[in-house]
């Protein structure tokens, strides 16, 4: 809330010293975002940290809320679910997004690229929850347009499709379909940034398509891939909408207490334990931050080119 005044104060500082302050426009553009970031990102985080270390009466509780979470019977299962989901989702994201972006880049020369790029992006243009709703229809063999496909796998009812063992695959499918399109477009843009001279030189040296991809394009995409993995990890660890909607659609048969974020939600609104809910979300934030730092350091993400 004090941010907008920061550039203002500086701009209003003794005149004459500098008639035109070079960063002013940039700060002006960033200011509204910073306000929103603080109001809806940072302050709630601070609120959560405060809750995580206090009991219901507002007294300092040490790590009691964290031990409550760790001792809850749903915690280990939810952690395992999220870990398995992250494995499936990150692997599919890295392999398929990079693969499809390279394919798209190769096809771009032939004119079909634009259409394909648009096609990849469409699902991403739907709002998150809405695209999950689409999947709920896709997964019900009685109404799904792909029902014949489900039936070939021996899945005749919605209940069979959403059997507990199928959930990591089902959720990865939903997340990939709704989220990967945007990343393919981003990777495609990054590939376009690679100088054609470089590729030309490689070709003259006798490199094939595979070798160009393996030794030139993918190494140059590395930072983009790291960026994608960091963000996808944070999003994946916060898995909530997909299992929650699945749980509602199946009347609680599948997806209840499935992810850590759902457990946090249950702590807050079913067990009336805001402290434990906050402790769990703070823990999730820490894990995401540690993973992000690890990736940034290991990959030299901020090193100058």
């Amino acid at each position: 809330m004090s941010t907008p005044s920061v550039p203002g104060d500086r701009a209003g500082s003794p005149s004459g010293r500098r008639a035109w302050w070079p960063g002013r426009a940039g700060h002006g553009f960033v200011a509204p975002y910073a306000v929103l970031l603080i109001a809806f990102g940072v302050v709630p985080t601070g609120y959560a940290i405060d809750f995580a270390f206090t009991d219901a009466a507002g007294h300092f509780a040490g790590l009691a809320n964290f031990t409550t979470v760790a001792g809850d019977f749903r915690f280990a299962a939810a952690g395992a679910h999220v870990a398995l989901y992250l494995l499936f989702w990150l692997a599919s994201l890295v392999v398929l997004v990079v693969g499809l972006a390279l394919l798209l880049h190769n096809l771009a020369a032939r004119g079909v690229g634009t259409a394909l790029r648009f096609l990849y992006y469409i699902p991403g243009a739907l709002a998150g929850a809405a695209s999950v709703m689409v999947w709920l229809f896709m997964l019900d063999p009685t109404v799904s347009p792909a029902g014949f496909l489900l039936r070939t796998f021996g899945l005749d009812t919605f209940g069979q499709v959403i059997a507990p063992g199928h959930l990591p695959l089902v959720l990865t499918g939903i997340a990939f379909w709704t989220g990967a399109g945007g990343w393919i477009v981003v990777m495609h843009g990054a590939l376009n940034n690679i100088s054609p001279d470089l590729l030309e030189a490689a070709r003259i040296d006798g490199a094939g398509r595979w070798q160009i991809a393996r030794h030139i394009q993918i190494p140059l995409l590395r930072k983009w891939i790291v960026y994608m993995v960091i963000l996808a990890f944070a999003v994946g660890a916060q898995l909530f909408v997909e299992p929650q909607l699945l749980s509602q659609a199946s009347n609680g048969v599948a997806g209840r207490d499935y992810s850590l974020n759902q457990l946090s939600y249950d702590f807050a609104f079913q067990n009336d334990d805001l402290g434990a809910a906050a402790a769990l979300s703070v823990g999730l934030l820490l894990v995401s931050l540690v993973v992000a730092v690890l990736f940034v350091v290991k990959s030299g993400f901020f090193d100058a080119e």
Partner: protein
Amino acid sequence: MTKQTRAVGARRSGKDRRGVLLVALSAVFALSVVAGCDRGGETSGAPGRGFHQAPQSDGALTVWVDSTRLAAAKLYRQSHPSAKLNIVTYDGDANGSNYLQTKVSLFNRTRKGWPDVVFSTQNNETSWAVQAGFTAPLNTGLIPQATLAGWARGANDPCVVNGTLYCLRNDLAQTVLWYNAALMRKWGYPVPATWEDYEALGKKVATGHTGYLVGSAGDNFTPEIYMWASKCGANQITGPKAVTVNTTSPNCTRMAALLDTLVKNKTMSKSSVFSSDFDKNEASRILMLPGPAWFGGALFQGTFKTPKGQITAAPMPHWSADSTPTAGNVGGGTWLLSAHSAHLKAATDFLTWVTTSDDYQGKVAPGYPAYAPAAKTWLANQASSHYYENDISGTLQAAAGQVWPGWGYGQFSQEAIWAATVIPGMTAGKAMVSLLPAWQKAIVNYARADGYQVKVGQ
């Protein structure tokens, strides 16, 4: 929703500007201080066990109802032109949405905003609302004992905590055996009085009339129809925060074995009676269907559109070892009065009218009224519609007093537990008898997570 979460998460990890960080940290600090103060203030006014009346004043009465009960509030406004009523519709806490609990805990934080009277579709609201200091005791002076005596026996049991009444039951949902009288007569089958006869008839139907159903076990409330009626001790709430759980006693296994037999010979459906699959393929092939009182109007008449003059109800079967039938119960809502209300007299008037009046409960309400005199009017109205093959009044009335009292109302949802632990196993073709230990384990876990003292066995 996901998009926004993603964007925020994205930017948070990319934060690298020291200035922004500094501002952010100071904001966090300021906020933590404010938050700390807030809660410090709240503890000083900690809710006691007694009932401290708020200073009374005139003003509009705030009433929260679900869309079905909106008719009741509107009718009250019509018949009481001088009453000032502020009607708010909400989801009625249906399907365990916990909306009311969430809101009340927020109001407790801000010390204002509570509704005066609330309708909930759930019977277990007192399990948290008493502790949260939200519900006012009703039998300690607010509502005369003579009025309270009018409720059906046991109807207000879900509302009693430590001997004090904290809510009023809106309607009953006692289970009965619905059946197609026309078909039973045509095939010459007598209505089964015992579960043994019921099972035998199921076996006969499986071979003689393939495709016809004697029941459905695919809903989340399946345990409330079959296990409850069989006196299975899965949910014996023995105190405000105490429960005894035993799902492997003979009372449970006998019913699970019966369901297994009938599921296996396909006379017991595994689909929810509300699923499109059931409506399309199975609704026209129902011979019998054990279920709550509201199945008659809501399912047969409303959803399945079964023609007039076919369906009727018999008492739930009982085990031959037991002498009388015991019924289960599936739902039936409750009314709560806020202990924070500044208009207690008006609120009590409304509450009494909405639960006992013939004008609403007897003539308009969709469910079987919990208040016995209103139930008489309601039953007479049902009989005059001539939808059922014969008069079902006697059956419903008798069943209202036969609901087994050993099944309580805890804070954890038995329906949600059944859905997540037993139904996936049934879908995978496992026998229900083999799923009973897992069911017990889940109940114990969820009860403990809600702070219950859990006793296993007996």
